[in-house]
């Protein structure tokens, strides 16, 4: 069974030979493992570990495409820049990290209408065609599931106005946020039309939407249904109309939103962050008949590089969640460089062994 055959069946919860395999890594993990001689320089993680999925991120959704990020302040450790969304971002220079959003030009509807909305046009320069084309060709050669990957509306809005203004806007001026949601959803669909018409369809769509944090989602299920779900429905219906299954990523605790995500048409939920409170076994019990899963293995069990701890985590979950043929092995977030190569290798080997159906 090829990776693409396997993953297409896993996303539809149909019998396969083994569970799927994919992973995300911190940027410095690959360089460290390569420097240690575990991975040959120039070899991809997909090739080295035999991942079943290959992603390409071809869209640039920043508002002002021509805006050169302006350095406002630079210290030994951080750099402060104004980006094309009008956001002031502080980034660490020494290590990988999500940037701090310091300030925003957009704090309400007027700011959105002045600084962002007019620029959100389906400009061909937003599409990295070569990236998409090359990755698509590579995935086909390797017979991996090729995913168009990108953010959906929740993850497009907060880089423009920040979580606090966005979430207050949902309460104070929901029509403003609905306008942002509709604008970004339409732009996504317009760009997908342009790309897929010229370069061909992917095998699946992978949306990244971080809608939760520790112990709770950012919004209630009601607010999700009213404000965000229309965009999820529109973009997922677009994919389904072309025969493409949809994987949706969310960090944080989003269990209360899962019924709404299923209504929107999500085929597979990824990443199921244990430290935020997500429980893979509970989700499988409640939604395993309607949803495939990827992730949910507590990455903290790999930090100590103790095989017994890793084994207990895998043995507690894989025999259960493989039951619906809809599971893909993945940590509950990503693998940092404190995890040794040997530990991750063990995680993969044992996970796939436990996840075999033959």
């Amino acid at each position, binding site marked *: 069974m090829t990776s693409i055959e396997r993953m297409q069946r896993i996303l539809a919860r149909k019998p396969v030979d083994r569970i799927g395999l994919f992973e995300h890594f911190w940027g410095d993990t690959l360089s460290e493992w390569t420097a240690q001689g575990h991975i040959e320089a120039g070899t991809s993680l997909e090739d080295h570990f035999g991942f079943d999925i290959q992603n390409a991120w071809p869209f640039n959704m920043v508002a002002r495409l021509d805006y050169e990020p302006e350095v406002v302040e630079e210290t030994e450790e951080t750099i402060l820049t104004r980006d094309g969304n009008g956001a002031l971002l502080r980034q*660490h220079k020494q290590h990988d*990290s999500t940037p701090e959003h310091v300030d925003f030009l957009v704090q309400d509807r007027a700011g959105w209408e002045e600084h962002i909305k007019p620029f959100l046009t389906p400009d061909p320069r937003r599409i990295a065609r070569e990236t998409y084309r090359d990755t698509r060709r590579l995935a086909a050669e390797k017979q991996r599931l090729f995913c168009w990957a990108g953010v959906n509306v929740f993850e497009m809005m907060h880089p423009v106005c920040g979580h606090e203004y966005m979430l*207050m806007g949902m309460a104070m001026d929901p029509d403003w946020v609905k306008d942002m949601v509709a604008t970004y959803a339409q732009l996504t669909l317009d760009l997908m039309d342009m790309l897929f018409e010229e370069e061909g369809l992917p095998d699946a769509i992978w949306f990244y939407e971080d809608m939760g944090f*520790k112990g709770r989602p950012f919004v209630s299920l009601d607010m999700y249904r009213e404000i965000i779900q229309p965009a999820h429905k529109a973009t997922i219906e677009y994919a389904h109309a072309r025969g493409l299954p949809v994987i949706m990523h969310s960090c944080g605790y989003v269990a209360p939103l899962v019924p709404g995500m299923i209504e929107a048409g999500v085929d597979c939920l990824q990443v199921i962050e244990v430290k935020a409170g997500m429980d893979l076994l509970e989700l499988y019990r409640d939604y395993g008949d309607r949803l495939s899963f990827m992730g949910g293995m507590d990455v903290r069990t790999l930090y100590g590089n103790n095989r017994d701890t890793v084994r207990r985590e895998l043995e507690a979950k894989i025999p259960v969640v493989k039951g619906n043929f809809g599971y893909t092995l993945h940590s509950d977030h990503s693998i940092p460089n404190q995890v040794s190569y040997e530990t991750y290798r063990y995680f993969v080997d044992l996970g796939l062994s436990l996840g075999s159906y033959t």
Partner: protein
Amino acid sequence: MSEILEQIATCCERGKMNAGSPYPPDMRGQDGVDELVRKALDDGVDPNDILTQGLMVGMSNVGRKFSNNEVFVPDLLMAAKAMTAGMDHLKPAFDSGAATHKGVFVVGTVRGDLHDIGKNLVRMMMEGGGYEVVDLGVDVSPEQFVEAVKEHPGCVVGLSALLTTTMVNMEETVKQVKAIDEKAKVLVGGAPLTQEFADKIGADAYSPDPQGALDYLATAEA
């Protein structure tokens, strides 16, 4: 509690900032915290009562509902905004000593970590709990926390981290803070944290949500 203090508490809990605010929709056109606190002061209500029996009650109610997943971040943000509208009127009373804070809460995200959503929610709830908050921001070194503790003797310290790679920096901060003031209470929180980790690094308390920090302090002070 007087009727106006009850109204202030309700408006604060519901996030009703002022009469012009469209939120919450079912309170459109009604006075909000802004007008009610102004009116209470004009009527001679003690600013301390406005704080403790009005604003703090409202924030405590919304904080508890947030802990129980009955309300979500937008509700908490709106409540905090409403509380700020009230606190603006109380500022002269704090400046003159007619009203007093419960204490000083020094908060920051630890060194190497640039995330601030969790820290900001805690800041809002501590302000709503009657504390004067000194927000050191993000990527705060142990030395910066120590300086703040020296500047605000008797303060409570809150450390936040989102990343497993940065939460380890909490230990050094706790150590340095305790070295200059062993009685200083240090509270920790953030996505990767656990009670076990908090115990290991010598923190006084861990809470998975902002209300838990306030509850701990209420118990500790009792």
